[in-house]
């Protein structure tokens, strides 16, 4: 199994506060990898570092074979076309409709015809479970759950190999959340995606995540499959997985 993301000694400092102190983990191709931990432990920060929105202070972070700490502008652009990112609240461009949001990367990066792009957009809208009649609505006109689905459709627009999800099920009702989990599993199966996700939703974690890294006290306290996790001696793991996890 080839490694998609590899972190070595990642250290993050905000002012005087150390957020991560030497994180090591690796994410393999084709797996759904969860980043878990108590609030404020820096899961989202770590995700932002992987997608080059924030810099790490020391260590190395390799994504799809590129070291993001010393990447050239050209390679960075190449890398950005190989992943999709779903932000917590969708982060759709508010001046564009759903269909235009999804079509944007296609217009910018490919020389496909308008007709072809329309077809692709229709397919993406359909695959994430949105209705085609919603395609021309603007982000301000749709619900939070629909925004997430539209955000996912946009993240998938370029058929990325790697998908980053920041709390994909938070703020969704339980039924939509389970649908979302099922969708993620289906996409992994269909498109052979590698998925990195930050989540607090225990049900979603149990249903989808293959392997996880648990961050607590600035370190990774556990990395691996969730099967025998409750034997690990960590306050967070004990309270999070302890009683509810079989």
């Amino acid at each position, binding site marked *: 199994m080839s490694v998609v993301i590899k972190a070595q000694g990642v250290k993050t400092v905000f002012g005087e506060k150390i957020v991560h102190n030497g994180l090591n983990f690796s994410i393999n191709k084709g797996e759904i990898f969860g980043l878990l931990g108590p609030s404020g432990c820096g899961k989202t920060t770590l995700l*932002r570092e992987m997608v*080059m929105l924030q810099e790490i202070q020391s260590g190395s972070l390799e994504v799809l074979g590129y070291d993001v700490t010393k990447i050239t502008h050209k390679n960075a652009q190449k890398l950005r076309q190989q992943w999709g990112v779903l932000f917590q*609240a969708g*982060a759709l461009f508010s001046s564009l409709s759903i269909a235009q949001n999804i079509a*944007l990367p296609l217009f*910018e990066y490919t020389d496909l015809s308008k007709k072809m792009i329309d077809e692709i957009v229709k397919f993406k809208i359909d695959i994430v479970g949105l209705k085609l009649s919603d395609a021309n609505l603007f982000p301000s006109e749709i619900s939070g759950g629909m925004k997430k689905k539209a955000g996912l459709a946009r993240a998938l627009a370029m058929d990325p190999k790697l998908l980053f999800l920041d709390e994909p099920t938070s703020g969704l009702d339980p039924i939509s959340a389970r649908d979302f989990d099922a969708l993620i599993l289906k996409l992994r199966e269909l498109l052979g995606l590698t998925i990195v996700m930050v989540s607090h939703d225990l049900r979603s974690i149990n249903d989808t995540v293959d392997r996880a890294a648990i961050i607590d006290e600035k370190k990774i306290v556990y990395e691996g499959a969730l099967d025998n996790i409750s034997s690990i001696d960590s306050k967070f793991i004990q309270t999070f997985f302890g009683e509810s996890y079989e």
Partner: protein
Amino acid sequence: MVKSHLEITLQNTELSIKFYGKFDLYLISKYEKQISDFKLTNVKTVNLDMSNLEFLDTASAIFINSLEKDFLSKPKILNIICDNKIILDTLKLTKNSTYSNVYMEQKNSFLGDFGKNLVLRYKDFISFIEFFGLVFVAFLKYIISPKSIRFREIFFEINESAIKAFVIISITSFLIGLVVAYQSAYQLKLYGANIFIVDMLGISIFRELSPLITAIVIAGRSGSAYTAQIGAMKITQELDAMKTMGFDPFAFLVLPRIIALMIAMPLLIFLSDMMAIFGGMIISNIDLSISTELFLSRFNEVIDIKHFYIGIIKGPFFAFLIASIGIYRGLMVKDDTQSIGFNTTKSVVESIFAVIICDAVFSIAFTNLGI
């Protein structure tokens, strides 16, 4: 249910405080006063009797704990009489939570504040320089590959911030021309120098008034809009989303706005020139009985074309300042809604200030150059 009250009895050296009914945070100050009314100097033993207490909330529990601490430090013998497990648990819970007040009190010293402020200002300045650097790099990229110029966005912004501002600029400039002419007509009449209103209006409007009025209206209209738009995009993570998709926000959002305003500003100043002169002409006609033909022929004679060019040339500079300050302030917005308001205010104030400074520099430069 018993009515909530406090019963305090003093027997020789023994003080008994009996709680009845419920004790919640609304009763604390009343009870505190009641207890403090007793002189405790001779008291050796204190009994806190809570056996008749039905309910205790956490605020009151904290009060009882502090009471207990107070009595123990005097020192007196303290007996707590209570058999209600829930109440005891509440007391225990509030006692166990040890909160340090390290973060509560932060000492401010004048020198410390001054230093912090200075560092903050310095960082602000550096980030503004960084912003200009990034704008410049994005501009170079536009020049290197003209294909990447976002013409659609540029035209969209020209429409938004210039075409839609035609009416307001026209009205403002017309009124300014009217007012300036009206005020000076009164003075000129005293000297019988009626015809010189043409010289006065032509030079002051072309050189100074029109560019400044236009810049101020645009700073209030577009500068604030840029800050609010980009600030909101930052809060909703749209900027982050753009970056992860490999779209440079400078090429997509920043430069189109700056370029659009730089193109539009001279046009707006031209419009403002026309409207202000028109306003002045009307007043000259009514107040000083200078006919339109006379006004125009005098205008042709005395007003050099250079005055017009000087006003127009200021446009792109003012536009650059307004647009870049507006956008920079938008990018400075933090993850809270308050900072949009704060930065929008700053953006308008700073851009008007910058425009006036720039105008002063132009004024000195042109005068020294003899233009």
